[in-house]
Structures are given as structure tokens and as C-alpha cells.
């Protein structure tokens, strides 16, 4: 098959798939990491992702500029995040329930407003061809890396550093680990969480822009197929560590590419099982790393998960 590339085709496809598919996972999970580190869960990021995808596509269609689309998606995502953060600070409000409400609201609003944009084509985001050294078109295609992927990778390193070494990172962590301690230090916990959720929304919105403007590069109502929800789970899997989020996003992206790649080299039996690979992987890793004797390592103390 494929002129002697054989098993390399699969490896290459998985690497290429990891780069292509992982970016939305990466952005949403980084955003959720910021939010959860501050002590709140925002399950609404799936809705933010879909709305980001729609608003980015619509903006790019109308303005002709994909970067304007990314900016609008980030703003819209931020607005969703701030809304979540604002509602959650009201008394007797549950952040998980609000998240689910916002997830449905975001998707519904995106479907409603996105109707006229299913048909038109939007200009895609540019990619950098890192595969120029190779003559093989497969290698060139796998290594066409989108700018947003690089931004996401840099961001995960930056966040990892910032959580440890900056004052802002420390304040977010304090708010997430002990609200009382943060208040004793004179910080307004609700405000910290409001900003953290807003920042998380911005990143999720940008993740959505990648979906509609680069890969798969089209707006339709099934564009996300649950990636926003999976990314939220991915944060727990990555133990709230931005660097681990990057690895986990790559793993999920690569696992998603496995099914089609195996079929293309002739392993065509049981493709439904290969398609389940990312989920099986999550289950297996969570079981392997869990312990009956302690709570989740790295979990922020104020999270409704770990309380």
C-alpha cells in the first residue's frame, strides 16, 4: 500500500492527526485549567466552542479576514465565560448546573445565528509548511502546522510557568485551593473567579475558531461533536497541569486519527472499535492512575469535584 510507506503511513497519519485535531482540545483544556484552578468548573465550554466556531466563521465570511474571526470568537467566548462567572457568584448557584445551561444555550444560539453561514465558504487560517524538507507529499501534509497550534503550545508552557512563578498565578491558585485564605489575604475571590472563567471562555472561543476556520474548516451544526466536553474531562486527566494538557490533547488528536489511517492501509475490520480508542484510552489511564487512598492529585481544593 501507498508505495512502500506501509506502517509509516499510519504513524505519519497519527502524528499529522495529532497536530491537526488537537488544537481545539488544547485551547479548551487550557481555558478550563485556568477556570478550575480558580475553584470553579465551567462545563459550558462545549457551547462556547460551538459558538466560537460559528462567530469566527460568520465574521470571516463577512469581513474576509480569518484573524478578525479569531478575535470575535475570543471576545464572544470571553462574554460567555464572564456570564458564567457572574451568575455563579450569586448566592446558591451551582456552577455545574449553570455550565450545562450555558452549554445548551451556546450551541442553540450558535445554530440559530449560524443558519445563513452553513453555505458560504470562509477564508481559512494560514498554516506554516514545516514539511518543506521532505519530497513526500504525505510528510508535507502531516507537517503543515497551523499558527494557532503553535500559539497553543507556547501558551501551555507559559501558563505552566505563570502558575508557579507569577503573582497572578499564585492568586488564582489560592482562590482555587482555599477561598478563606484568599479572603484573609484581602482578595475578592468572586472577582478572581470571574476573570479566570472569562479567560477560559476566551481560549475556548479561539479553539472554536480553529475548528471552523482551519480544520475541518467549515461551519456546520455537527462541527464540534462533543470535543468541548472531552476537553473538560481532559483537564482532570491532565491533573490541572497545562503542560500535561498539551500532551493529553496530542494524545486525543492522534488517537482520533488512528481509525481512518488504519483503514487506509487495509486494516478495515472493527473500525468502530478504533474510533472508540480515545475514550478507551481515557478510561484506562484514569483507572491506572487512580488510588482509593487519596483524592485526585493536583485537584484545586475549592472545586466542587473534590469537596
Amino acid at each position, binding site marked *: *500500500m*501507498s*508505495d512502500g510507506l506501509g506502517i509509516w*503511513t499510519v504513524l*505519519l*497519519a497519527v502524528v*499529522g*492527526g495529532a497536530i*491537526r*485535531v488537537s488544537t481545539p482540545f488544547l485551547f479548551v483544556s487550557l481555558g478550563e485549567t485556568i477556570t478550575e484552578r480558580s475553584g470553579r468548573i465551567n462545563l459550558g465550554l462545549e457551547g462556547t466552542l460551538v459558538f466560537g466556531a460559528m462567530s469566527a466563521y460568520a465574521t470571516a465570511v463577512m469581513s474576509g479576514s480569518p484573524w478578525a474571526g479569531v478575535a470575535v470568537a475570543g471576545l464572544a467566548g470571553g462574554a460567555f465565560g464572564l456570564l458564567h462567572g457572574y451568575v455563579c457568584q450569586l448566592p446558591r448557584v451551582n456552577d455545574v448546573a449553570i455550565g450545562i445551561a450555558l452549554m445548551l444555550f451556546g450551541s442553540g444560539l450558535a*445554530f440559530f445565528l449560524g*443558519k445563513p453561514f*452553513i*453555505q458560504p*465558504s470562509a477564508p*481559512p487560517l494560514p498554516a506554516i509548511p514545516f514539511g518543506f524538507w521532505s519530497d513526500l*507529499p*504525505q510528510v508535507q*501534509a*502531516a507537517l503543515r502546522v497551523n499558527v494557532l497550534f503553535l500559539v497553543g503550545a507556547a501558551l501551555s508552557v507559559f501558563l505552566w510557568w505563570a502558575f508557579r512563578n507569577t503573582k497572578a498565578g499564585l492568586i488564582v491558585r489560592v482562590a482555587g485551593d482555599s477561598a478563606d485564605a484568599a479572603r484573609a489575604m484581602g482578595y475578592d475571590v468572586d472577582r478572581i473567579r470571574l476573570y479566570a472563567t472569562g479567560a477560559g471562555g476566551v481560549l475556548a472561543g479561539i479553539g472554536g475558531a480553529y*475548528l471552523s476556520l482551519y*480544520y*475541518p*474548516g*467549515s461551519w*456546520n*451544526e*455537527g*462541527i464540534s*461533536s462533543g*470535543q468541548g466536553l472531552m476537553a473538560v474531562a481532559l483537564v482532570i486527566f491532565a491533573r490541572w497541569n497545562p503542560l500535561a494538557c498539551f500532551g493529553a490533547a496530542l494524545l486525543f488528536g492522534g488517537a*482520533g*486519527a488512528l*481509525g*481512518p*489511517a488504519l*483503514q*487506509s*492501509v*487495509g486494516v*478495515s*475490520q472493527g*473500525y*468502530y472499535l478504533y*474510533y472508540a480508542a480515545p475514550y478507551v484510552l481515557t478510561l484506562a489511564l484514569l483507572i491506572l492512575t487512580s488510588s482509593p487512598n487519596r483524592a485526585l492529585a493536583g485537584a484545586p481544593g475549592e472545586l466542587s469535584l473534590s469537596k
Partner: protein
Amino acid sequence: MGVIYVGPKDDYGYNQAHAEAAKALKAMSGVEVTEEERVPETNAVEKTMESMINLDGATLLLPTSFGYYNPYLLSEAKKNPKIQFRHCGGLWTDKDPKNAGSYFGYIAQGQYLNGITAAYASKSKKIGFVAAKPIPQVLNNINAFLLGAQSVDPNITCQVIFTGEWSLAVKEAEATNALIDGGADVVTCHVDSPKVVVETAARRGAFVCGYHVDQSPLAPQKYLTGAEWNWLPIYKSFAEAMLAGKVPEHFVRGGLSDGYVKMSPYGPGVSDAARKNADAVKAEMLKGGFQIIKGPLKDNAGKEILPSGKAYAEKAVELESTNYLVSGVKGSV
């Protein structure tokens, strides 16, 4: 009458083809059309059917997605004996309720013509097919696409990748990439919305054949031709029968010669020789009775499908239970 779609009705695909016919029907006097989009293949479709019957007063229902039929349409048909149900996809037999029926087009003919243009455009002699689920209609299309190509060059092979769902944008894009990485340089598909496949393939520099409706605006340089539906004649005949107080036909099938299937205009990538060949075969098909599946023919596991001298013409019922991929297709059901 009520029309039910599984996806959005402007999806550049399956649902749009139905919606275009429904839109044209609205202009007919005496016909009122209610539509509902994005109805999943679950008991949600029963609720939609009931509300169309009870609230909108629909007397003829056209649920257009394959998975609506069993058990949802069947149970509604038993519950509402006065309402007519016609299902797109071809599952109805005369044992089923008399107020139900099915219609479908032999669009495999269009895929055969796609295959002819693909064979001329392909340099690698490998073509690819992104398929949703291994149901007979999809398998017929895959087989026809390759057999059309092999009618030009018998050495051509076709790689198929199943995504497992009718509409999964990321997986369709991955499948298209995997096909092209595997060496395919012409790609077609059978998913609900071919937009992602067409755009991804064109971006990778591969030629693409369309499906469901004309996708040439999405890839003007790389679009060869496409197999399109034309449901209007069927819907019109249903509506006319209802208006005349008669029972619409239970079993409607047709291909190019009946006007239920049509082809997109040729794109700039189609050579003169390809045009000539495809036009000649199309003229044959327009006469009716064209045989795509004809012996001697083996499936891709080496088993004999048809001995020499036998063939299935376009209206053969055997084609509605296809469960094989012909020799030369890489993939399995």
C-alpha cells in the same frame, strides 16, 4: 404534507437535495408543506410525525432519513391508518403497513459516471471513497464508482474509509487526508454533507467528485462532476396523487432515465476524452436498464457475486440488499 430532515436543510448535501424539492412543491396550489430539520433517528422523529399529523394536519409524511423507518415510521403508520407515509431509502415491502411506502433513486448510476471522469483524472490509479455506514445504498455507490473507473482502466483500485456516522466533520476530514496520504488522487464520498470532504480534498490538491447536490462552488478547479438527486418529480407525483384523492405509489424507484438523478456540469479538470466517454455512457443510461453490476464479477474477498452472462439492471431488487464490495475495492463491510 410534512417533510422531516435529519440535518440542517442547507447542508450542501442530502438534506438540501430534499429541501430543494420541498421548496419547489410549496409553489404548487393546494399543497401545504411543513418541514422540520435536525430530527434525530430516535423516537424524536415519532414526536415530530405526531405533531405534523395532529397540529399541522399533514396527510402525507416524508421522513427522509434511512434510520427513521424501523421502528418509528412503522409504529406511526399503524397508529394513523388514514395518514400516508413515504420513506426515502427503500425498506418498504408489501408485508409492511399499506399506508406506508418507499422511494429512492439509483444514484449509483451517477457514481458510475463519477468513476469514469475519476479514471481519466487519476494519475496514481488510486481513487478514494469516504463512506458513512456500510448499508446497501452506500455499498452500491462505492461499487459503482470503482466499476465506472475500471470501465476506463481495469487496473484502478479504490480505497474506502467508513466514518461510522452520517455527519462527523472532523472524522470526514481525517478520512479524506488518510485517503490522499494513501495515494488516492480523486476522492468522492457518501456522507450527509460532502462540504468538508470536497474542501479538504481540494486543499490537498486532489480532484473530487460530488454527491447529493452540486458542490462545484466549493472547489471550482478540482471538481470533476457529481451525482445529484432530483426528488421533485417524485414529490410532485405524490402530491398530485393526494390532491386527486388517490393513494400515492408505494414503491418508487428510478435513475437517470426517470429524472430522479442528474449530474453536475463537468469541471475544468475533465478532459475531452473523459467527457466523450461519460456522455456516451450517460446516453446509454438514459435509455433505461443500464447494468452496472454484471458478471463475471467477484467481491473483494474473492467470492463470486455473479457468473458470466448474468447482470443486475438498475431496477433489480437484488441491489437493495447489496452486502459486498467488488474486487478492487480496498476495505471491508
